[in-house]
Every structure is written in C-alpha cells, then in structure tokens.
C-alpha cells in the first residue's frame, strides 16, 4: 500500500482504513493533507504533501434524538444533509456555521460536518449560542500514530477526562483526523425579525449594536455592513439604499419577538431605524451573511479579524488609512470580515500592526496561493503559546504527518 500512499488522493470508506493509512504514513514519515469535502481546501498555509486523506466517504447520520438535542454523524457527512434533517424536526445547529464556499469560488452547501468543527467557524448567532466547539459533544479521531481514540460522548454534560474535543476543534486537521462527531442541536425559533438602520457611521453602528447586546432580549445577530458591500445583498431595500446597513436580529416565539422588537426600537430611537424584515426576509438576509455573499465572486484578499467590539471601529479606521478596505462587522464588531485591494502581502503588514496595537487576531481567509505561501495566514503566536502549541502537536502527531504547516510553520 505504501506505493499508493506516496502520491494521490485517498478517501477510505471506513475509519479503520483511515487509521491503517495513517499508521502507514506515520511509519514511513510521509506527510498527508487532511481533508473533509474540500470546501475550505484553499484556506491556510500551503501544505507540502503528495497525498491527500479525505473523509468524504465517511458519510451518514448514525444517531439523531430530537428530544435529547443530540446528533452523531460520520465526519464526511455533508453539512447540508445534517441541516436538512434537523429542519424537518424544527431544529438547527445554533452556532450557524459560516459557509466559506462562495468566497472561495465554489457553490454553497459543500462543507462536511467534520470540516465545520475542524475550523470552528461560527456565524452571526455565536454571540448568543456559542462557537462550533461549544456544540461538539464527542469525537472519534485518528491521531498521527494512526491510533483511533475518542473523547467526550453523546450526553450534554461530561467532564470525564480531559476535553480533547476542544483540542481537535479549530485545529484545522493538524492534530487528528476526525472520523465521527456528536453534536448538540437546538430548536429553531418560531419567529425571526430583523431591525435595520441605514447610514450609520461605523463607530455609531458598533455603539448601537453593543447597546442591543446589553439588553436582556437575547439578540441573536448584530451586524453592520459598510455601504459598498451592502449594495451586494439581494434585498432591494438594502441594496438600493446606497448606504451602510446595521441589522439587529431577534428570534423567539411570536409574541415574545413582538415585545422584544418593540423594546429594542425604543432603545434604538436615536439611530434612525427604517426597515424591519419579517421571518422569511430575515432568513434570506442572514443566509446571505452566513455565505458571505458580500465578498463572493471577487479575488480581493479577505481577512477574518477577532477583537473587542469597543475597539473594532478604530481598528478598521487605522487600517483604512493606508489600505483600501471594505468591512463587515459581525458580533457587534467582535468579528470583522475585511477585504483589501490585491497587493503582494494582502495588507498583512498594516493589518498585523493594527492588531498588535488594538488586540485580537487576524486570519487571512482568501488570497492567492503565492501570497499564502509567503506570509503568516493565521495570527502569529507569542513565544509561550508557540511553545505550548508545538508540545500539543507532538502529543497528537509527533512525526508531523497531519497537515504539516497548514496553521504555522513546523506545526
């Protein structure tokens, strides 16, 4: 089999065969690229391997108990299949996974569930519902020795042993290959409404969004889209406004939504509210945000920046002094999606300098391969964290065969 492993694309049909393949790779010290269904394949540093190990043939939902809010699926199961089944029972993945497909040039809905957790990319509802990793209850994995192991389980509360689910979530396939994931699911709200303000300057929008999150009304989306990007959304009232749009989402049962929207309108009276989206319109709007429609069909470098909301507008303003950028503020400004003009370093110097001043971290989500090959795609770590990162990598994958260099050099 070694001859096969050296080059090519491998999609074993069982977790046992993935373990065999990785054991062989470990033995021969042959690095492999770890992939789900490949929808985020073009994110990260370039991985120098001749072989790909994919989980795309590990597919299928093995457990779904709506009354226990739990679902298990093989890691290669399409996210779309899981969301379809959940919707039939009025449930959902509350963390609203971001779909990077469209900004990377592929259709939406192609992601695998394993890839969703491996990249820990939560969407707008993260402010209320938590990140992807907060919903991962259990994993079956294969480590860099080719050994199968599990962590967590299928119950909502579990502190038995270390929480290796957290280690694996967000590790971009560099610690282990997930073969099965068990997740917490939640009811879909019966009704959704979205309040819209137009033309707010960024700092004012952040102020309004923070005001909303500081209420007891369980606001589940606070978003501000700068004018040129708002023009790319489909709702005619938004696209045609020629102004930035700020959106506040409330989800609950109908009378509760009416009450909460009313109270929020009172609070936001000073911010020129002008449009309200009903449940169906809201669904379309937030789906476009989740698939980053504003940034699709472009090759401008795209950054994902995490920072404190109170510093978000200043951070963007500083970057905008030297770069031509367009920004979307999600999570009240805690998450900034920002695209820049095509330059050799995708604006990395200016962006990293601003991050160093304001705190937070930035990841380059979309850029030419040559650009990604020549700079830090993920936020560089300080010495103490880098040392711990290397030790953790060695505890899972001592030979460094799993996605070597995808996140950091030598990891």
């Amino acid at each position, binding site marked *: 089999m070694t001859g096969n492993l050296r080059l090519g694309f491998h999609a074993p049909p069982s977790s046992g065969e993935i373990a065999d393949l990785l054991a062989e790779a470990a033995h021969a010290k042959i690095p492999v690229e770890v992939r789900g269904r490949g929808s985020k394949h073009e994110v990260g540093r370039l991985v120098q391997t001749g072989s790909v190990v994919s989980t795309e043939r590990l597919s299928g939902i093995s457990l779904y108990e709506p009354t226990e809010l739990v679902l298990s699926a093989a890691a290669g199961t399409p996210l779309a299949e899981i969301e379809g089944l959940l919707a039939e029972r009025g449930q959902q993945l509350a963390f609203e996974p971001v779909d990077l497909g469209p900004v990377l040039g592929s259709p939406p809905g192609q992601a695998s569930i394993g890839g969703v957790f491996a990249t820990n990319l939560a969407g707008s509802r993260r402010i209320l519902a938590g990140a992807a990793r907060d919903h991962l209850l259990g994993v079956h994995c294969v480590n860099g020795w080719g050994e199968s192991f599990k962590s967590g389980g299928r*119950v909502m509360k579990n502190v038995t*042993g270390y*929480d*290796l689910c957290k280690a694996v979530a967000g590790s971009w396939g560099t610690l282990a290959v997930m073969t099965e994931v068990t997740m917490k699911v939640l009811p879909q709200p019966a009704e959704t409404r979205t309040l819209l303000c137009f033309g707010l300057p960024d700092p004012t929008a952040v102020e309004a969004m923070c005001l909303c999150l500081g209420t007891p009304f369980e606001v589940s989306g606070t978003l501000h889209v700068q004018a040129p990007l708002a023009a790319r959304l489909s709702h005619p009232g938004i696209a045609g406004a020629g102004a930035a749009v700020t959106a506040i989402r409330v989800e609950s049962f109908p009378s509760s939504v009416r009450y909460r929207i009313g109270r929020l309108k009172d609070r936001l009276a000073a911010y020129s509210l002008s449009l309200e989206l009903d449940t169906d319109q809201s669904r379309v709007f937030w789906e476009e945000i989740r698939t980053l429609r504003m940034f699709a069909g472009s090759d401008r470098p795209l950054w994902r920046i995490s920072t404190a909301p109170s510093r978000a507008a200043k951070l963007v303003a500083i970057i905008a002094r030297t770069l031509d950028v367009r920004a979307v503020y999600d999570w009240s400004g805690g998450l900034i999606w920002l695209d820049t003009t095509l330059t050799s370093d995708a604006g990395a110097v200016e962006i990293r300098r601003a991050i160093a001043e304001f705190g937070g971290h930035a990841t380059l989500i979309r850029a030419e391969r040559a650009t990604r090959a020549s700079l830090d795609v993920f936020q560089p770590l300080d010495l103490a964290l880098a040392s711990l990162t290397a*030790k953790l990598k*060695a505890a899972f994958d001592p030979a460094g065969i799993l996605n070597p260099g995808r996140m950091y050099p030598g990891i």
Partner: protein
Amino acid sequence: MSLLTLPKPDEAILARRDEIVRQLKKLVPDAPLIADQEGRRTYETDALTAYRCMPLAVVLPSSTEEVSKILRYCHDNKIKVVPRGAGTSLCGGALPLEDAIVLGISRMTRVLGIDETNRCARVEAGITNISITAAAAVHGFFYAPDPSSQLACTLAGNIAMNSGGAHCLKYGVTTNNLLALRVVLMNGDIVDIGGDYLDAPGYDFLGLITGSEGQFGVVTEATVRLLKSPEGARPMLIGFDSSEAAGACVAGIIAAGIIPMAIEFMDRPAIHVCENFAGAGYPLDVEALLIVEVAGSDDEIEILLENLTDIAERYSPRTIRVSRSAEESAAIWKGRKAAFGAMGQISDYYCMDGVIPLSRLPEALHRIGAICKSYRFRVANIFHAGDGNLHPLILYNANDRAELERAELCGAEILKLCVELGGCLTGEHGVGIEKRELMRVQFSAADLAQQMRVKTAFDPDWLLNPAKVFPLEGRERQ
C-alpha cells in the same frame, strides 16, 4: 483509607521537608506558609471527606508572580504540587499528598475590571463564583455557571472541573463562559490565552485547560463572559406519580422547542427531606417532582408557563403549581439549593454525578434503585433533568468503615450503569481521586493514552495534582 490508595510518598522529599519549607519562605516571603500540624490539618481533605492526607506544607500566594516562583522551584526540585481553590471538590480533586505541597489561591480574589461594553469581567481566579455575579450585578449583568457550592467555590476550581449548575441547560457550563486565562505552567512559565474578545487564536487551550482538574497549570486570572440578567424568572412545580411520567414530560418539553432556564428533578425521598428543611411548599404525595424555570418579561413568562402547563397535562401530572410571587420562587429554589445540606442533616450521603441520555431516565432510576437495594442502602435522587445529569445520593453511615466501602462499591456500580446506558461517569464534579479507577469503564487504553500524552505535554514529570484522573497503574506506566 478504604478502597482507593494513594501512591507511596517519596521518602527523599519527606526527608527534605524542613528545607523545602525554609526555601519556600525565602522565595515568597509575603505569602502565608503553613507548616505546623494544626494548620495543615485544615487542608487535609476537601468535600470528599472520606479521604484525608496531610500535605508537606501549604502556601497561599497572592500574585501570579508568586505562583510562578513557587511552581518553578517545585519543578526544579521535583516536588509535587496540589492546587487548591476553596476545597469544595466532591471527587477529591484537591486531596493533598504527603509528599506534595498545597498551593492555595484563595487569597487571589480581586475583581480587576468589569467591561460593560464588551460584556466581560477580568478577575483573579481565587474569587468565589458568587462574588463575580455580585460584582457584575451592579451593572445588571451576571456570570452564568452556578454550581450548588457557589457561595464558597472559587472560579479557579470551577475552571479546573468545568463546573456546571442548575442553569447550564440554557447558559452552558464554565468552558462556554470563558474568554481568557492567565495560567502558570509547572515550570513557572506564565501563559496568557485569549482576551476580551471571542475565540482565542490557534489551538483551543482555553477549552483544553478548562476541565483538566488542575493537572495542566494553575489558573491565576480569568476573563469571563457576562450576560444581562433576564427581566424576570419564575419556576413552576410539576408533580407526577412516577419518574417515568416525569422523564417523558422533560422530553416533551424539549420536543416542543422550549429550552427552559432549568429543569430540576427530585424523587420522593428528596422531596420530603427538602420540604422539611426549607418549607418550600413541595407536594408530598408525588413520586417525582420537576422544577421548571423560565425567564423573560412578565408576559413572556406567562405564555411560556401556560405552554409548559399544556405540555405537562399530557403526562397526567398529580399537581401543577406555578409560582405567583418572588417569595414563592425563592422558597422553591431554596429547597432545591439546600437539598444537599438538608440531606446531610438526616444522614451521611455519598453523592454521585453520572450522566445518562434522557430517554433512558426511567430505566436508569429503576436500576439505580435496585442497585442501592442490593447494597442495602436508601437512595435519594436530585438532579438536573434537562441534561440527564443524575445526582443519586446514597445514604450511609460514614462512621462505619464497612458501610463506606460498600457505599463506594454501590456508587461504582451506578456509574458503570450510566456508561452502559450511553452516558458518562461525571457531568460536573470531575474524576479526581474518586472515579480514577473507573476511567477504563468509559475509555479504551488508546483513549486514555491520548489524554495522558496531553498531560505530559503540559507537565512532563507529572508533578501537578498527581494520582488523580487516571488509574494509578496506567499512570505509572506512562
């Protein structure tokens, strides 16, 4: 000592005790150092009082720098360290060892900042859980995880055990409510993880350290997420003739798309003890009682309680009572929160913490009853039904060593049952020393080996909180 044994102490370390105490005194002159017999006795156990062990010495630093100096010294001299918050662990997580020093951080209690805009609080980790909410309440916020011991337990201990509480059905447990940690590793290195923003960069060390039972490092500071307090909250009581009906009702509530703040369960013995103690107005003629609490505005609460009443009616409840006043609500929660204390007044008890899939609840309760009966114990059940986290209390006489050993055997069988039904050994208390030897019931050798490799990555000499979490035999091999 009954069933569980502690590793043989290192004679060379014991022989160096006076020197170690002298060195520590020199190293951190401002930190209280407890070396006398009486003083150390205060620290010989935690809330798993069946086990006791006098530590070498106890040191109580008040800064990250002092913690770092102490750990570096212990690392260089191969001295074991048992970190300690308030000592409320129910699984022996803070049990000392004879050849270990206890590093207590209960003096590190300052609130370093409340940030209303970014909705977080930065605190020293020795602060008690309730004090965080007390500090945040001034601004209308609260810190969500609320373990029963919240008056006494420290945030550091909550982080070590990934503690939950009655309201984690809606708000999550400790790991879901942390933004940043300052951690001192065993070699004295100080590591900052995360910040006042969501999702720390790189590997999720925040999530990995949370629940690591003090074996990866000593957390000295943390930034926690704050939530705005709901406008109001109100519980209702639903009593049933059988635990089967109560379990089915819980499933019915969740199937209807309602996630209450809390769904608590008590069986008949627990109801009677709590009612005697707190006068909460619990119905005494039922076999199972649910406390279901919802939050929102008065109107929202009314509607939710009406919906819950409709759902409950389908499961033939014996009584339904909605709280009509703040006093009534307080009394209902007083009974539940005082449950363990109240139970302690009538008998010694051994508190289990297994978790089961909710659909197996009736079977689990039936078999737990049978197991306890076979060991000739009475059992009372009080637990978080929304997430299947059981707390069977095995009533026994702690002064009878034979009974203690029998209670442990009985408890072990209950936990094995939880695993058999698809659940786990512990939902919120941790493994500690108590469930160490049961880990093989839930995990394969490969599962445990992977966990132990992670431990070794943080603490290659296994000096931090040793003899816990993993079966001793496996640990020695490691």
